[in-house]
């Protein structure tokens, strides 16, 4: 077979493939010798370009085209064999170059088209926003650069644009504490002790983390939101997704996983004592076991239920889990002493000594023997004279003043008259007097709800009647005292012993037994009525005792005291006084375990730098609180199996649970349950099973954050 390709000079045309243009006859195998010029124009009109040798023109036709022609050039030096001009075509190389320029131009054109159009956000957005930010259609909401436009992108890239940074724009909507750009959104001083605690912790972090820490140490300062939260990764992207390495880059003791190197749990899950004192051990082993009639709970879920978020196991309401056994305690059942709180109780006074030594205080119930109670002392605080008298008296017993100094006798006299003035004030002005006395000492005015709770419909009429019984001639005595005149002799004021009001006194409540609260007075006091009224009382049927009649709570007068009997659990009066008198003697009195109402029997008292407070509720979810560690109970229910709650919560019968409530420090505490070991969680929380990423259990931004609320103006509704 004859070879087609010849490589010798005489029989092989040159196609000039490296030039932009090639001869149009090349495809026919007859390309010219010269080839097109650089602009693609054919330069050849004849088969050869004759050469002038001396004075003769010689044919220069190549061998490829037949060699020298017999005819030869014309005398003018022109080839006699013309060639039709070709249409040069571009070489492959040139075509490729042109295509390259077209591609580049197309790309530049498209970019410019987008820049000058209004479609920059749509076309240049690096990816769909997450679902949470999908509604934001203005780049300026998040990006400073968008305020300036494409002309400033280069300056923006160099960080030279003035204005509010992107992070500040994030914080317009997201509240993550007062120090959002600091590590964990908290002051470094709070983290310092935690850091110190981990300094000695031996750990073996993953190699990449070790290298990263050595190469790019983390910082706890000026962290932009975008460092961790990376947007434009699609609608389903998780903005809170952070690698474990990033979580630990700043930590002094990074570790490999929950199972390997994670610090042991410390007092988990109970970092403090329970707010409600409930001894699981004694209830399980004693109370529930010994008294089956109480139909004790059979399962944990009888008393506990998950919150709406499924995280905390809440204690069910008192009425559901406690009332069957403890409601009668609150009502005072089985109580040896008075079942009501002595709000106003006439204290005992050594009247004889006072009168004998010239410090008479007028009429005083002779069988009064109580010490000034905390309520009385608190109400007297608004009276400077009483305060001075109490200070002078100190621990002096009012009912035995035989050895008292004259100054103490004078103080006792003043105090007695102040008590009478208090009674008169309360009798005449009722709750208003009580509130004014509280507000005189308080830093702030009480709102109407708290006033109502503190007064609890104080029966001024009953108090007036009681005052008249206890202190006949009260008004005269006080008038004389205030006028600086000698008090009327007891015989002048009233020759009777303390009893019902003297007939001469105006009976403001005549014919209004209900308002008087006729039932408020104890039968014993009725029995102390004058003999003249005895025949009428003799035919009167005797009812229950006054305390029994007030079993559902309220005010009543018993002997020489105006008492308030709590109306059951969540009694507003008791709670209002406890809250109003935080940290005072009265607070201590009301929060004693055996005080009427027995609030302190179950509700623990916490004392901190912020003050003293009663834990009215067990642990409750706090929507604003972002704790460092989070746990979802409900997420684990399905995998507990037969052991159920015992899988994690193991009872510790030896724990001195009750001792934890002997002081007011919630941190001194021994749980009824053993702390949960890290291994319990690490059994399942491996990369292969339940996952063990840091953010599965921990939050980065910690603290209590207020949610962002729109600042919509009301006037905008009418525009």
């Amino acid at each position, binding site marked *: *077979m004859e*070879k*087609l*390709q010849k490589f010798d000079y005489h029989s092989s*045309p040159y*196609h000039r493939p490296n030039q932009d243009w*090639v001869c149009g006859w*090349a*495809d*026919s*195998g007859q*390309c010219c010798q010269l080839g097109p010029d650089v602009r693609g124009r054919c330069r050849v009109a004849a088969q050869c370009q004759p050469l002038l040798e001396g004075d003769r023109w010689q044919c220069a036709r190549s061998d490829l085209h037949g060699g020298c022609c017999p005819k030869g050039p014309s005398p003018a030096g022109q080839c006699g064999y013309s060639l039709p001009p070709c249409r040069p075509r571009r070489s*492959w190389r040139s*075509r*490729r170059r042109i*295509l*390259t*320029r*077209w*591609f*580049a131009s197309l*790309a530049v054109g498209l*970019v410019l088209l*987008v820049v000058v159009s209004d479609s920059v956000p749509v*076309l*240049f*957005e*690096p*990816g*769909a926003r997450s679902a949470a930010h999908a509604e934001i259609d203005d780049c300026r909401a998040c*990006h400073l*650069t*968008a305020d300036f436009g494409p002309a*400033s*992108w*280069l300056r*923006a*890239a*160099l*960080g030279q*644009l003035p204005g509010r*940074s992107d992070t500040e724009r994030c914080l317009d909507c997201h509240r993550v504490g007062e120090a959002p750009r600091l590590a964990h959104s908290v002051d470094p001083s709070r983290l310092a002790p935690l850091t110190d605690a981990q300094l000695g912790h031996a750990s073996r972090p993953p190699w*990449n983390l070790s*290298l*990263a820490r050595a190469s*790019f140490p983390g*910082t706890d300062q000026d962290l*932009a*939101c*975008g*460092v961790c939260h990376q947007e*434009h*990764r*699609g609608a389903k992207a998780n903005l809170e997704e952070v*690698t474990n*390495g*990033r979580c*630990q*880059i*700043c930590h002094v003791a990074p570790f490999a996983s929950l199972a390997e190197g994670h610090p042991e749990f410390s007092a988990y899950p109970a970092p403090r004592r329970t707010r409600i004192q409930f001894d699981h051990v004694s209830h399980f082993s004693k109370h529930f076991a010994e008294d089956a009639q109480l139909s004790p709970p059979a399962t944990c879920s009888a008393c506990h239920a998950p919150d709406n978020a499924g995280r905390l196991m809440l204690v069910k309401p008192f009425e559901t889990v406690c009332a069957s056994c403890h409601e009668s305690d609150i009502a005072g059942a089985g109580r040896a002493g008075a079942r009501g709180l002595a709000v106003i109780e006439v204290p005992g006074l050594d009247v004889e000594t006072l009168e004998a030594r010239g410090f008479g205080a007028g009429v005083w119930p002779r069988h009064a023997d109580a010490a000034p109670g905390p309520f009385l002392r608190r109400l007297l605080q608004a009276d400077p004279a009483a305060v001075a008298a109490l200070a002078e008296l100190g621990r002096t017993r009012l009912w035995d003043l035989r050895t008292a100094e004259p100054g103490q006798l004078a103080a006792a006299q003043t105090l007695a008259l102040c008590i009478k003035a208090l009674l008169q004030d309360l009798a005449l002005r009722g709750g208003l007097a009580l509130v004014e006395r509280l507000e005189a000492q308080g830093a702030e005015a009480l709102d109407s709800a708290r006033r109502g709770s503190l007064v609890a419909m104080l029966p001024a009429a009953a108090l007036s009647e009681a005052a008249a019984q206890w202190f006949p001639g009260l008004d005269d005595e006080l008038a004389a005292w205030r006028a600086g005149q000698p008090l009327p002799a007891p015989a002048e004021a009233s020759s009777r012993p303390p009893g019902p009001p003297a007939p001469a006194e105006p009976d403001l409540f005549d014919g209004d037994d209900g308002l008087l609260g006729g039932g408020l007075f104890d039968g014993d006091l009725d029995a102390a009525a004058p003999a003249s009224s005895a025949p009428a009382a003799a035919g009167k049927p005797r009812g229950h005792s006054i305390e029994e009649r007030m079993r559902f709570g309220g005010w009543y007068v018993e002997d020489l005291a105006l008492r308030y009997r709590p109306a059951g659990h969540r009694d507003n009066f008791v709670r209002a006084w406890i809250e109003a008198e935080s940290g005072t003697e009265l607070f201590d009195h009301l929060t004693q375990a055996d005080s009427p109402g027995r609030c302190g029997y179950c509700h623990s008292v916490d004392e901190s730098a912020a003050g003293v407070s009663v834990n009215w509720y067990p642990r409750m979810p706090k929507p604003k609180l972002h704790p460092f560690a989070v746990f979802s109970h409900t997420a684990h229910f399905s995998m507990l199996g037969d052991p159920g709650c015992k899988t994690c919560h193991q009872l510790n019968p030896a724990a001195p649970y009750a001792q934890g409530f002997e002081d007011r420090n919630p941190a001194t505490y021994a749980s009824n349950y053993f702390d949960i070991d890290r291994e319990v969680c690490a059994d399942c929380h491996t990369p292969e099973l339940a996952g063990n990423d840091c953010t599965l259990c921990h939050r980065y931004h910690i603290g209590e954050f207020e949610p962002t609320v729109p600042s919509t103006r009301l006037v905008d509704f009418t525009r």
Partner: protein
Amino acid sequence: MMGFAQRRRRNLLGLLVVFAGLLAVDRVYQASLHRAEFLSGWTLFLLILLLGAHNLRKRLSMLPLGSAAEWLQWHIYIGFTVILVFLLHVGWHIPSGLLDTALALVFAIVAGSGVLGLVLSRRLPPRLTRRGEDVIFERIPGFVVQLRQRAEVLVAEAATETGSTTLAEHYRDHLADFFAGPRHIGAHLFGSGRPSFMLLHRLDALARYTNEDEREFHLRLRALVEQKDELDFHHALQAALKAWLFVHVPAVSALLVLASVHMLLAHAFTGAA
């Protein structure tokens, strides 16, 4: 002197080491509080520029910067490295933004055409040397014309000398188009001989209808068909060796433009964090 296989093993091993190193750096950077995308992005861009320098090197052949073959080797291995860096850069996900998607698509075209070019340049030359005559690609159209002319002269001569138009009719009906230009490109690329087999089979079947005078012409025509088929084979394979560059090189230009815009945007919209 190191052989090709040995050199390839060495280079592949080196490539694996580089891959491992890049993955390690990425993991380390991911663990830091820095944006790993910027590291991988700048690495990617610089490597693409380096790959583009291969084309520049060919134009500056006067400079002593190593042989074109060495540059090509580097181009190939850096190209594979760039693919890995790209995957690290996009986080092994397909981007969702329009610009980023376009950029990723162009990159995929560049990378894909590059890999295709590598495969073609490894697979086709041995096939070219195994079959037919070595011909310069630019001259193939001329050779096709030569063969067509020879065939046409041959069948005309056969009709004249034998008085039979059998071969001429066959040429008109079945071979004229075949000789008109390069044919069966796809079949030759994929190594299929079916179209040429069919042509020859049909031509061979014609032999029973020819007389002895025609038979010699028939054999010569058959030889021309075979020669034309080999020419088509060379045309198809050499065209493929050049055609992939018509995708690869232009796409690189678009890639550089889009990548530059992408980088500017990335820095502009994170510069004020």
